[in-house]
């Protein structure tokens, strides 16, 4: 373990490892190949997980060693403690984690236990003139970038913003050194008990967090017609949003307005009804994965962004759609 100078902590999700962890690994592998360092990936595995399969996959991204961790109980505090104990022993140059909710908590516990600083939400990794590690992070609401270089005395704890780096299998056919499962029993069991999980209710969720959205604009015409938007949202389990016009007419509240004077959303599905697609609105929905536009004007800019354009009257389409669902 001692020769592994860069550690990457991977995060589990139901189907395997989180995409953001692969982004971090790809970026760290790029640095490591320039510096000639070895990368060790740590991840919290379930006892029945197929470690070999995960290992082969991680190797193709550039990992040199894989250490499955088995921490009881599996809270961010105990995981952080186990990683910090290992880091005190092996003294890696840096520990990288993707800045997710779990990732930030674990990184903070590791940094707190190592009594070092935490470089959170980094946007750039690089090497200095003497091959020392440099990291850049944004401060003051992402307006100023500050770059730091490692002096190489302490282990750096770094979290990296997800969604910035490409995922690339740059090392096909590379072999991985599968290390023995490391079991850690926390001495002081974490007294924080997790009782349950409350899924967000689409009717009350903040539209920034919503996975599906139905948005109405001026083309909806009246508040009466706007109720159709709510009905469709109910059918799809989506949240309701609106344009500036919809908000000015009192059809939606300010916290549901999308665009320059409202919020920026990133849903999987967005159905845009009676929205022309002025830039002041569309700048708030650039991150949308799948956009359906319903507008009578076939030259409306919203159709240029849409995956499905329907040139038709939005209230009528929605009415028919609801009728179709209700009749089965």
């Amino acid at each position: 373990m001692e020769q592994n100078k860069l550690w990457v902590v991977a995060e589990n999700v139901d189907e395997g490892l989180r995409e953001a962890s692969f982004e971090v690994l790809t970026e760290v592998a790029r640095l490591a190949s320039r510096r000639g360092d070895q990368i060790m990936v740590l991840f919290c595995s379930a006892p029945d997980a197929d470690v070999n399969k995960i290992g082969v996959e991680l190797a193709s991204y550039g990992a040199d060693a894989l250490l499955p961790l088995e921490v009881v109980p599996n809270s961010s505090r105990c995981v952080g403690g186990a990683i910090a104990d290992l880091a005190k022993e092996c003294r890696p140059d840096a520990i990288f984690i993707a800045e997710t909710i779990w990732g930030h908590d674990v990184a903070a516990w590791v940094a707190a236990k190592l009594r070092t600083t935490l470089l959170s939400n980094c946007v750039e990794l690089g090497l200095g003139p003497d091959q020392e590690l440099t990291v850049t992070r944004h401060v003051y609401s992402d307006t100023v970038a500050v770059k730091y270089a490692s002096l190489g005395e302490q282990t750096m704890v770094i979290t990296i913003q997800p969604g910035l780096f490409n995922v690339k299998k740059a090392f096909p056919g590379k072999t991985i050194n599968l290390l023995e499962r490391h079991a850690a029993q926390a001495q002081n069991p974490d007294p924080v008990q997790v009782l349950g999980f409350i899924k967000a209710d689409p009717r009350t969720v903040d539209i920034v967090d919503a996975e599906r959205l139905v948005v109405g604009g001026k083309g909806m015409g009246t508040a009466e017609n706007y109720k159709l938007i709510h009905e469709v949202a109910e059918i799809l389990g989506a949240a309701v949003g609106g344009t500036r016009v919809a908000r000015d007419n009192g059809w939606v509240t300010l916290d549901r307005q999308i665009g320059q004077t409202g919020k920026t959303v990133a849903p999987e599905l967005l159905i845009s009804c009676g929205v022309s697609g002025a830039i002041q609105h569309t700048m708030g929905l650039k991150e949308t994965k799948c956009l359906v536009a319903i507008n009578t004007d076939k030259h409306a800019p919203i159709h240029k962004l849409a995956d499905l354009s329907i040139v038709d009257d939005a209230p009528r389409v929605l009415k028919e759609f609801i009728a179709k669902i209700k009749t089965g």
Partner: protein
Amino acid sequence: MKVVVLIKMTTVIRGNPNRAENLEAILDPGNVALDVNSYDLAALEEAQRLKESIDYVHITAVTVGPESAVKALQIAHGMGADELIWVDAQYEGGREMELAGLLAEVVSKQGFDLVLCGLKSDDVGTGLVGIGVAEILGIPAVTRSVKIEILPDGGPLQIHRHVGKGNREVVHCPLPAVITVERSRRMPRYPGVARYLAARKKIIRYAVEQQPGTQVSLRHVETKKAQPRPKKIFTPDDNLSAADRMKMIMTGGMARKKKKKAQSVVSGSEQLYNFLVKNGFLKNKA
């Protein structure tokens, strides 16, 4: 119940650094404004709500910083804090754990059941100090809380934490504990003017002999304007012709999506239904 709220003043830049010719002038301490950290205001609001929900809650607000940090305490008093402690010391970036050590010393001297603080700060936003205090005091910590409830009969606290996408996790945490607070729909109340003005007389000042501190193992290289976020690099589709690939590269991959043309035969609602079923957003009933 003794609640200690950790608050701080954050630096707010005037103007847009991306348009500034001279970044140093903008970042000059004489030119920046100061404001109370919005996450800490959320923590103060949570403390107030606890005070309203049970009989005896004593709120102490603690801040660390130069003379200008006193304003945070005035606002805390305006919002309803009972006791104000100003630790006259300054910690630059990279020494969060020393700051956490100092705060741990102050709060344990003060006596506490619960420590509340913001999830992170608006300016530097490392998000380490809350967990650092918990680690040094050896007490449990819960992060990203949006709702704190006290269970009857002296039971543990019931906390809703924000776990992304609007979902919440419900946890039980025994006291004493550190809880970091996420900004939520619960808007921080406006500080009352009379209490705001009366605050200066109530502030207790701790002067701290600043220790030289351990060497931070970081070297500051440069401060520059933030580049627009480096988005994932675009690579064109191999199946396209050379001309199309060139076009896509020149437009940065922003080429118009291939649309499914509206077919006049199928009605709009039919198209919408078929599209949603095909993409797995809706189950086909037929």
